[in-house]
């Protein structure tokens, strides 16, 4: 069955999915509200925050499933040893980039918290709270990279490489 790690990845995916569902509900509520003359406060802002949440929460799940696209044309036919080295370099660059994203996402959250900034919409909300998913999601992204790196240190190719040759839509 699922290991605890698989569950974490799935949780990342479902958190992102939940944010997408919230967007749908909020936008539908806005449409219905307009028809009966009730304005859903801050509907556009809330769905925007949910979009950010869905993008960042889903990073880890998408990464592990090979969802983030890259050019595999030149690397797919490398001999196994060269392929391993290449994947190691790529993952190291990925780790650097993910650390950068993670660090400055948290920095942004921390700054919003320190200056007690509020969102600008109809309902003022603490900005750090709606920015929190960026910090959490990018941390998940970094952890997923570290997990892939750990796999490489055990001598295997990371999980994402197994899914990449598949066409995006499953069960063809």
């Amino acid at each position, binding site marked *: 069955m699922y290991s605890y790690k698989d569950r974490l990845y799935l949780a990342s*995916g*479902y958190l*992102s*999915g939940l944010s*997408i*569902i919230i*967007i*749908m509900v909020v*936008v*539908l509520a*806005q*449409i219905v509200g307009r028809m009966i003359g009730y304005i859903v406060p801050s509907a*556009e*802002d809330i*769905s*925007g*925050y*949910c*979009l*950010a949440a*869905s*993008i960042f929460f*889903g*990073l880890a*799940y*998408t990464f592990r*499933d090979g*969802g*983030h*696209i*890259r*050019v*595999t*044309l*030149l*690397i797919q036919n490398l001999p196994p040893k060269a392929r391993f080295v*290449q*994947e190691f*370099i*790529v993952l190291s*660059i*990925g780790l*650097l*980039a*993910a650390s*950068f*994203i993670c*660090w*400055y*996402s948290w*920095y*942004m959250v921390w700054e919003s918290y320190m200056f007690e900034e509020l969102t600008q919409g109809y309902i003022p909300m603490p900005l750090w709270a709606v*920015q929190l998913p*960026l910090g959490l999601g990018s941390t998940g992204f970094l952890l997923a990279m570290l997990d892939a790196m750990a796999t490489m240190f055990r001598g295997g190719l990371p999980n994402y490489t197994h899914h990449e040759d*598949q*066409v*995006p*839509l*499953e069960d*063809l």
Partner: protein
Amino acid sequence: MDLIVISLVLVVFMLLMLALGVWVSLSLVSVGVLGLMLIDNGQIGLLFGTTSWGASTNWTLTALPMFIWMGEVLFRTRLAADLFEGLTPWLSRLPGKLLHVNVLSCGIFAAVSGSSAATAATIGRMTLPELKKAGYSDRMSIGTLAGSGTLGLLIPPSIILIVYGVAAEVSISRLFIAGALPGLLLVFLFMGYIIVWALLNKDQVPQKDTIDLSLAMKLKTLKKLLPILGLIGFVLGSIYGGFTTPTEAAALGVFGALLLAFFTGTLNLTTFSASLLGAVKSSCMIGLILVGAHFLTLAMGFLGIPRALAANIGNLDLTVFQLLAYLTLLFVILGCFLDGISVVVLTVSVVMPMIEQAGIDLLWFGIYIVLVVEMSQITPPVGFNLFVIQSLTGKNILYIARAALPFFLLILLALILIYIFPGIATYLPYSMAQR
């Protein structure tokens, strides 16, 4: 450092990262960081924070996961089968018969789904075995599917038009409406070609499968098409009429698609979560690319490369036609290695000032760039539609590319027509009601 040197360093760095297999989104971020480091910008991380927050909370962009999810839901319904059964009796009199089903089903499915891979996969899964059973030539079945699968990019709702609209700051409602006529033009070109081909190659079209149904029966099969046509009319009509924003139309579309799946009995917990996770994967991937592209665009702005490029091109006194010809060449080369969305975000961050300087309508350019991307979808070595059809049929990718070649040329013809008659793209959007 000199601007030319910086540009060269960045281009080489970008190509190196992409060739090595670094994820497109992270390559965009890294090139942005390097560019800002080269001009000693001290605020790189802060700039990234602000742009990623700004890019990912963009209200117009919320249409993206909605439309992706809608396609994922419909992909798991009986829609493809219904389209096949509903359309077949009506097309049996046209020369080429069932081949037209490929084109029209793709066209109709494209109007509810935003991606060309999804369109080709959903329709091909249904039609290819049926065409084979009826004895149609493999090559023509595959070619029509590859060609008309690309309609998913152009016929609204289209993921790539949302990406272009967000990146180039053009109204997505207008872009969607602008895609409608060129999409229809392509459908007619494809069907016209099939008719001519069928008349010239009578021996390759099976003659006996004509089932002439009475008009009453024909109308009965049409009923199968009603839900999907209703959904299309509803989503596109409300955008064109100015009743809803694209995001609202998309949310209604997802809701409608879920209802449709529910009433046809294909909605259960498994398909629901599978469609949701599928939507997560695509929208998360595109979302991160857009965050990276936004950051790169900002970095480019700081460096001044697009401005300098626009000024240099301005000095060259190129005609619009020459400029477009060079750009097309560039896009086709890029499209050989990158997917459509990456081509669009990469070029928009550099090329936009140049386009504006040349006095080219940004709306028209959006349709133009999508047509070029459509062509690149069916050219090897990297063409997503080719991959999809490869996994559907198990045929060699070069064989599929050869089968798709006539359709590549037809898209090129459409591109030329739209250059000569820009109104095909711009008439509807400039006459629509805007909310």
